[in-house]
């Protein structure tokens, strides 16, 4: 019998769906982020004092953290899609996933750290 790799059910994936969810999230959150930080703020950018005051608003803080999560996930899923197009072996694919997960955690961690340092 001829072996056919395409006749076996692969592991289901939700990567595309998450890309869409975070994408939809970004449309809303990036819109808010943009308006709040660059259009409402006079001069297109907040000065230091304004940034601190802005981030101390708990609603804004939650939205900005959510934004950070969405943008990091969306960006890294996008990077993953491009790299997957190089046709990796399954093992390299798994390794890539691990690297990107760590990178994602580091990115979000860094963002949170900066935020905490600013509002303190």
């Amino acid at each position, binding site marked *: 019998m001829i072996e056919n790799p395409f*006749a076996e059910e692969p*592991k289901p994936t939700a*990567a595309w769906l998450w890309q869409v969810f975070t994408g939809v999230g970004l449309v809303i959150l990036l819109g808010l982020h943009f308006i709040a930080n660059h259009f409402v703020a006079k001069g297109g950018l907040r000065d230091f004092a304004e940034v601190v005051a802005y981030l101390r608003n708990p609603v804004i803080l939650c939205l900005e953290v959510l934004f950070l999560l969405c943008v990091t996930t969306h960006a890294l899923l996008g990077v993953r899609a491009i790299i997957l197009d*190089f046709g990796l072996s399954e093992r390299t694919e798994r390794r890539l996933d691990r690297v990107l997960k760590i990178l994602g955690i580091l990115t979000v961690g860094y963002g949170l750290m900066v935020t905490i340092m600013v509002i303190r």
Partner: protein
Amino acid sequence: MNMLKVPLQIFRHKPGQPSRYDTFTVEIPDSAHVIDAIDAAWAVHDPSLTFRRACHHSSCGSCAIRINGVEKLPCITKLSDVWDGRTPLRLDPLRNFPVVSDLVVDISGFFQRMSAAEMAITCEAEAFLPFTVDRFAVAELEPKAVELPADFSRFNRFEQCIECGICMSACPTMAADERFLGPAGLAAIYQARHKTDDSRKVAHLLGLADGEHGVWRCHSAFECTEACPQAVDPAGKIMALRRELIARRFSKLWGK
């Protein structure tokens, strides 16, 4: 019948030798199709030119190549539609397949993908006539309903997909990812899925498509649908599979 002198610039490759282009000038009627020109180059100029063909009427799918860079079936492509009257007509083998020799590519990967879904090659014919893959073809004809003979439950016909490989050549994702199930493979899964009510079979077919290199790998360039000579609309079928897979995932989430 006017005879034309048409220069053909044909991609030549033999294993172990560098690839090149050969130019043959063939003399053929102005009403000829591109396959007739290739045929003449082979019969008159060079019997070592290898190309695929069988039916000459877009049913076998074997002759697909790139004409001036665009995937086409030379058997239904009129010379007058692609040749500007001066520049040599460039003929290349399909992309995204290993070249065996000249215009012949190794299409085993395509048939592997087509075999995955085990889609039957015939399907139920429409309840009306005429049936066409070219919506402009029947502009002057009103569709008419078809009655079945008493002992028939249906008329059947061969599937639209002629397994020519054009979609796989046109697909930008296929260009990169060799493990991608590809437009035709996914469209076949969709067709097979809609030919059965057996829930286990449906789950299996959807399972085949629901992978990192299945429907989710498609980047929505819609090149397959643009290039398909048989209006199979593989991209549309990929999107329909996505929709069903998403719906299933959500209904599972809601515990149904």
